[in-house]
C-alpha cells in the first residue's frame, strides 16, 4: 500500500494529469460532477456527484456517424469521439460496482465498441466512503463502501491518502507516480454505516425467480400514479444503460448520435407499430422490473442497483427504488 500526505494531493493530481486526462469529482453538493482536472481544481466535499461516474464510459451523447450530403451524393463518415487514456479519480464503491453491471451489458457479444474503447482507456481510482448520506444503501446490496474495487482503491485518513493497486492497470498507474511512500492505512471506524437507515433493506422478494408474480403485483398502480414521467432517476442512475439513436439534420447532412433514453419517457422503445408500454405505469414498472428482476434473471442473481441513493435525492416527487422495494417486499412476505 502506498501513501501520500493529503497536502500533496494537488501535486499527485498534477503528476497524473501530465500523461493523461484526469477527472476528479468537483463542485458543490448537489451539482458536483467529474470534471477534467486543472491547476487549482479541488475535490468536492460532497459524498457523491450529481450524475454518476458512468458518464465517462457511457456519455449521455455520443457521435456515431455523419452523413454528408453533397447534391445527390451521400457520404458516410465515421465520427467516433476519440478515446484517449484517462484516469477517473474518486469513484465511490457504488459507482464502481455500476461499471461491472454496465460491462455485462455492453461488453457481452456483440460488444459495444464505443463503450469498450473508453473502458480500455480508463483507469478507475476509487475512494472509500467515511461519511455516508442517509440515502446510501450500497451495504444492503453487498457492497463495502469502505473497501471499494477499481484499478486502484484510495482512502483518506488522518491526513494521508492511501492507495492500493488492485489490477495490473492500477499497478502501472501507481508505479508511474512520484511522491508515493509505502504505508498501511489505519483501521476505519465503521460504526456510522451501522446506523444507516436503509442498511437492512430486504431484497428477498426480488431476483429472477418470481418474475410474473412481481410483474403482476397490484402495488404498481399506486407506486406509479404520481410519477411525472421525467428522466431524472434514469439520468442520475449509474446503472441505467438504455439509449436511443437519433439523427440530427444539420441542413448539409445528418449527424447520427446516440443518447441516453429513459424508460420513463412516453417515446421509450417507440416503434412503428406503436408503443409497447403505452402507460406510465408500464414504463415505471419496466424500470424497476429491469433492475430488480430482469437483470438478476440474466446475470446470476446480481441486482441492477448499486444503492448510491441518487434517485432518492433527485426524484421530484420522491418516488424511488427503496419505496418500490418496500412496497413489493411487504407484499412478498408471508
Amino acid at each position, binding site marked *: 500500500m502506498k501513501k501520500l500526505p493529503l497536502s500533496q494531493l494537488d501535486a499527485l493530481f498534477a503528476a497524473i494529469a501530465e500523461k493523461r486526462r484526469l477527472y476528479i469529482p468537483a463542485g*458543490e*453538493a*448537489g*451539482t458536483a460532477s467529474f470534471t477534467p482536472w486543472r491547476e487549482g481544481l479541488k475535490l468536492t466535499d460532497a*459524498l457523491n456527484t*450529481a*450524475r454518476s461516474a458512468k458518464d465517462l464510459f457511457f456519455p*449521455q*451523447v455520443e457521435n456515431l456517424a455523419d452523413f454528408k450530403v453533397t447534391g445527390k451524393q451521400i457520404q458516410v463518415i465515421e465520427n467516433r469521439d476519440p478515446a484517449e487514456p484517462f484516469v477517473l479519480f474518486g469513484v465511490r464503491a457504488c459507482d464502481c460496482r455500476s461499471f461491472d453491471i454496465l460491462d455485462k451489458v455492453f461488453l457481452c457479444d456483440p460488444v459495444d465498441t464505443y463503450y469498450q474503447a473508453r473502458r480500455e482507456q480508463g483507469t478507475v481510482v476509487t475512494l472509500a466512503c467515511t*461519511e*455516508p*448520506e*442517509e440515502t446510501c444503501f450500497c451495504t444492503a446490496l453487498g457492497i463495502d463502501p469502505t473497501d471499494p474495487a477499481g484499478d486502484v482503491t484510495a482512502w483518506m485518513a488522518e491526513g494521508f491518502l492511501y492507495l492500493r493497486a488492485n489490477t495490473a492497470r492500477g499497478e502501472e498507474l501507481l508505479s508511474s507516480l512520484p511522491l508515493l511512500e509505502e504505508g498501511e492505512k489505519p483501521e476505519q471506524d465503521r460504526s*456510522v454505516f451501522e*446506523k*444507516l*437507515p*436503509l442498511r437492512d433493506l430486504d431484497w428477498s422478494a426480488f431476483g429472477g425467480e418470481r418474475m410474473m408474480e412481481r410483474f403482476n403485483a397490484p402495488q404498481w398502480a*399506486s407506486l406509479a*400514479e*404520481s410519477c*411525472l*414521467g*421525467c*428522466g*431524472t432517476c*434514469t*439520468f*442520475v442512475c449509474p446503472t441505467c444503460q438504455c439509449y*436511443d439513436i*437519433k439523427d*440530427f439534420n444539420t441542413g448539409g447532412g445528418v449527424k447520427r*448520435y446516440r*443518447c*441516453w*433514453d*429513459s424508460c420513463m*419517457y*412516453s*417515446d421509450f422503445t417507440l416503434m412503428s407499430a406503436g408503443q409497447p408500454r403505452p402507460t406510465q405505469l408500464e414504463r415505471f414498472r419496466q424500470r424497476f422490473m429491469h433492475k430488480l428482476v430482469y437483470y438478476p434473471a440474466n446475470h446470476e442473481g446480481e441486482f441492477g442497483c448499486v444503492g448510491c441513493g441518487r434517485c*432518492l*435525492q*433527485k426524484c*421530484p*416527487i*420522491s*418516488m*424511488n427504488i*427503496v*419505496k418500490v422495494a*418496500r412496497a413489493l417486499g411487504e407484499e412478498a412476505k408471508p
Partner: protein
Amino acid sequence: MQERVKAKAIELLESGCRVLGWKAGEFFYDVTPAVFTSREEIERDFVFNPFCGANQSKYLIAESRRGGRVAAFLKPCDTYSFQQLQKEHRILRENVYAVGVQCPGMCDMDALRAAGLRGVTGAEDRGEKLLVHTLRGDREVDRSLALSERCRVCKSKKLLDCDEMIGQQGEELVSTRFTEVERLEAMTPEERFAFWRGELSRCIRCNACRNVCPACSCEKCVFDNPASGAENKAPASSFEENLFHIIRAFHVAGRCTDCGECSRVCPQHIPLHLLNRKFIKDINQLYGPYQAGADLETRPPLVDFQQDDPEPSIVGERGTNP
C-alpha cells in the same frame, strides 16, 4: 396542521371523494403525492408536513377527469396554478373539492443540504424551529434556513377559489422575487451570457422542469414530437441553452404563476425560475401588472394587446437595466 389536514382528508373521503394528498416516505422529507381511496390508507400513510411543498394542482388535470370527485389540499401558490388550469379548461372544477391550506412557507431538503446538513434521517416540526436528526446526532435549525427560495420571496398567501379553508385567508404580499432578475439585468451582456451558459450548460434534459410544470401540460410537447421538426432528445450541442429553455419559458409566459416547481425539481440546480420571472417582470412593466391564475377572466397578456403597446425596440432603448 398535520392533524387538521388528516382529519379533513378522512372526512372528505367518507363524503365520497378520492383524496389527493401526501404519502409518508422513508424519511421525514421524502413525501410523495398520492391519491387515497380508503380510510386505512389515510390513517397509515397520510402526512402533511413542512416538506409537502410540491404543487399538486397539475395532478388535478387527470384526476378531475377520472370520474367522481377528488379532494385536494392546495397551498396559496398552488391555488394560482389551480385557477390558471381551469382558465385553460384543463381542470374540470366541478369534479374537484379544493381545500385551501394556509402556508407558513415550505421546506426544501436541498436548502437543508446546502446549509451543510448531511445524513439527515428525520426532522420534527417545532414551529419556528426544525429539529433535524442526522447520522451524527440531532441539530436544531431555524425553519427559515430550510425554506425553499420561492417561499422566502412568497408573493401571496391568498387562497383562491377554495371550497373550504384550513387556516386564515391571507393577503398578497410585497415580494422581493425580482431582485435576482434585476441583479442579472444590471450585468453586462457578456456577464449575463456567461452566467446563463454556466447554468444552462448543466442541463441534462431530464425534462423534470417541464413535466412538473402545471403550465407545461401539453398533450404532446413540441420538443418530444419528431413531427414538429424541433424535436431534440438529448443535450447534444447547445440545444438546451439556445432553444429548449427559451422556448419553454416563452410557451409558459403569461401563464406561469411563478410556483417555482421548475427550480425545485431541477437535479442540476439550474435557477430556471429566473427565466420565467424575467417574462413576468417584463409583462408587468410593459403591459401592466398581471398575475397568471389570479382570476378566470382577464386575457393572458400574450393573447391580448393594446394599440399603444411599446415597440420591440424598447428592449434596446431602455438599456440593460429597465
